[in-house]
């Protein structure tokens, strides 16, 4: 049996925030709220797990650091030894200060791009994907609440509950 989503569209962030605990009390599973701006306390109310994107950022960053050092070691120490700043030491650790700026930039580049790409992949926002638009004004001044339901009867119950708590309309 596939899961279905019942949507309720609200026009006030405060109403959404206060509706969540009341719906949860009635055993509805509020999975998400789509909002044009961050609502304080929403993460807590929804009981969302902490994002793991920071962990991936760290791993991408480490990758960037290693790649940059490997590249410079190969180019300036191994393949074509360079006299850096009048210090012909030809060792990575002795020339390290000269390599730090590039290493730093590469770390940031890999961490930032890695995070963005991961985020897009996880939220299925790839080029060519048809976006799901529940309400065109969800990026302007509307708030969409999503409740996971199993049957059509449950969906109707969820719709009725959201309407009772101030939803403008349901979908």
């Amino acid at each position: 049996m596939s899961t279905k989503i019942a949507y309720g569209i609200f026009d006030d962030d405060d109403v959404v925030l206060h509706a969540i605990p009341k719906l949860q009390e009635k055993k509805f599973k509020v999975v998400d709220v789509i909002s044009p701006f961050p609502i304080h306390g929403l993460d807590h109310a929804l009981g969302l797990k902490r994002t793991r994107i920071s962990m991936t950022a760290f791993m991408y960053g480490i990758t960037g650091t290693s790649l940059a050092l490997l590249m410079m070691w190969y180019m300036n120490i191994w393949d074509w030894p360079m006299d850096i700043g009048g210090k012909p030491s030809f060792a990575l650790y002795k020339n390290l200060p000269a390599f730090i700026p590039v290493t730093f930039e590469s770390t940031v580049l890999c961490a930032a791009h890695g995070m963005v790409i991961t985020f897009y992949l996880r939220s299925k926002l790839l080029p060519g994907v048809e976006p799901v638009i529940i309400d065109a004004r969800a990026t302007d001044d509307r708030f969409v609440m999503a409740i996971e339901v199993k049957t059509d009867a449950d969906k109707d119950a969820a719709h009725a509950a959201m309407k009772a708590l101030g939803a403008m309309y349901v979908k």
Partner: protein
Amino acid sequence: MNYTFNQKNKTIAFVLIAIGLVSIAASFLTHNHQAWSNLLHNTFYFMAISLAGTFFLAVQYAAEVGWSVVLKRILEAMGTFLPFAAILMLVVFFGNLMAGHNGGHYIYHWLHHDLYDPASAEYDKIIAGKSGYLNLPFFVIRMLAYFAIWIGFTRLFRKLSLKEDIEGGSANYLKARKYSATFLVLFAVTSSTSAWDFIMSIDTHWYSTLFGWYTFAGMFISGLAVMNFIMVYLVKKGNMPFITEHHLHDAGKFMFAFSIFWTYLWFAQFMLIWYANIPEEVTYFMIRFEHYRPLFIANFLINFIAPFLVLMTRDAKRKLNLLMTISVVLFIGHWIDVFLMVTPGVVKEHWHIGWMEIGTTLGFLGLFMYVIQVSLAKAPLLREKHPLLQESLHHSI
């Protein structure tokens, strides 16, 4: 929510001061050639911490920051050490000047008269060329001006804050905001020039255009470490029940961010000099790298790697014990940083860190603790009538 300076803490402070006095006396009696540089090192370090308190307070006013209202009393208390630092600095400077005249050893090389006399064998063209700025009367005037500005504004902020406790309203807050903007402009200039005067002029030939900023970064981060330590201590004692995880998180973030800022400046200064390899610049790092290598490397590891790795995660910034540990680590780390700024210029490669050095620092720490706890006990720890108080109490991130 008042803090009481109990007998136990008083005893600790007095014991530390006594250790300090014994160490200072011992270093002079045993002709420890590091005696003067130890005094300058510690005076500058604790002055910097205290000044960072006033600076951060002024930033909070000028930027109309809401979340930090609960921390303002700590910052005010940190600033109250400045008059003591000023007296100590004057004692160190004039004491050393008199000792130098009597055949002793000057901290500041540029004080020697022969350097400016073209007939003398000691004549130094480069230093003589700097005499328009580096001369005794102007130095003393500058020193007095710094202390007048810093202490004046610190006292002004304190006065307005205490007045607010009685009067309420936002008039005092708005006044403090106006004065803090003025202070920040003056601080921008004096923090740089005071770093040149007190520290950079020890290595009289050498100069670095980044030095003022670098010193400021170290000053700010050691101030934040002390602020966090006091905050955690007061929370643990139950004096500050209004401080939540969110405040800890933000304070921890500041410490994390400015550790990286300090590293950035430290490295920017080091790398350019290392890369260019110009003799008159690179000598500064030669002596530090060759003769002070353990400290030089420890400085980087303690002040960058430790806070970077430990404070990176969100949970770490919210844990009292971890925050306290890392602030102690940073306090020691920046003590080493200032040691590396001051000592090599004064005693060259003949350095040591023995019981007299550590004892001197403990003495300064005792005095600092005493002054701060007296100030903390004088006023309620929460500014009940601050216009942004509610925002701070309900701070949530």
